[in-house]
């Protein structure tokens, strides 16, 4: 009883007999909090629904949409290739677009997004090893002399 009394006296946990005024931080979190309001969680839910986090595979319509996106990215690549003004920006742009296509195919067409995580680990591990070897070969040749024919 005494414990309860002191608790009520010293710690404000709601409206006691002294009727402290409510403060804003005791209110439940407002729904529209954050710079984008509900946008981010809504997009996350939509993404999970579309990419079927609970389902086993996407729908044919979803796969067709991914195919259309891949085609559009390829068109952008070819269009960007013909722009001479891009200069040195061409390389990073092409790599970025290529990476986007790569990820879309691996995640959705190869079902890594829907499948067991273990397969993703196996493939990602090998990819990292492959990229490391790739960088090692380039570094070795660049720092080890030149070959010309």
């Amino acid at each position, binding site marked *: 009883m005494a414990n309860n009394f002191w608790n009520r006296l010293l710690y404000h946990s709601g409206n006691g007999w002294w009727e402290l005024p409510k403060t804003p931080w005791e209110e439940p979190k407002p729904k529209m909090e954050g710079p984008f309001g509900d946008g981010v969680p809504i997009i996350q839910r939509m993404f999970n629904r579309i990419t079927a986090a609970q389902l*086993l*595979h*996407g*729908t*044919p319509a979803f*796969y*067709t949409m*991914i*195919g259309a996106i*891949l*085609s559009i990215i*390829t068109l952008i*690549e*070819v269009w960007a*290739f013909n722009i001479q003004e891009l200069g040195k920006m*061409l*390389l990073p742009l*092409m*790599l970025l*677009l*290529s990476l986007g*296509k*790569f990820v879309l*195919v*691996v995640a*959705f*067409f*190869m*079902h890594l997004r829907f499948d*067991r995580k*273990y*397969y993703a680990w*196996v*493939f990602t*591990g*090998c*990819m990292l*090893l*492959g*990229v490391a*070897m*790739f960088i090692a*070969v*380039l570094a070795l*040749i660049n720092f080890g002399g*030149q*070959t*010309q*024919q």
Partner: protein
Amino acid sequence: MTTATSTYEVKTEHGEVVNTSTGLSNKKLLMWSFLGSDVMFFGAFIATFLVYRDRSLVGPYPSDILDIPITSVSTFVLLMSSLAMVLALSYVQQGRKILGAFWIASVVVLGIIFMLFQVYEFTTFAQEGLTPRTNLFGTTFFILTGLHGAHVTIGVLWLSFLLYAHLKGALRANNAIDLELAGLYWHFVDIVWIVIFTVIYLISARDGVPPGGVPWVHG
């Protein structure tokens, strides 16, 4: 979602009972491991292409010979074959035989069209004077794209066999894993081409005569 039926037997989401102690399909794990090793295989050849990029001293050079519009069309064909592949798997898993057969046949046809594009390209290059023995660009180009073409050929043969099995009723929803494995292989061939198209065709296509190189005269 998988359901354990005994200590080592697991029923997969499509009704197939597989013998595994890990809860994973051994066939699929093997395929992913193979694809992982193939990443390193192609990584080595792509790295070799980049190492020797811009080091040929005689023509034809990439800017003289590469035809981006044609290769863009063949890239589109391969991307669409990947889409057809995933649709084929989806319909076979649903037990829709005619749609499944149609999309598997589409993959085979698109794969053959892609191969014909490659045959056309190789023939044209040879007629123009670029062979694997001409210069470093020719050697690395033909080896890399040729190995990719060999992968496509194997994929087409594999899928033709699966199409036959599907039409005969041997490939059904409960053993669609066999088509899924072929699909993984086919999509991998597609992603390798995505990288090749970017590295060889889009990034290197503007490479002209390097310092010390002899300008190439057509014909």
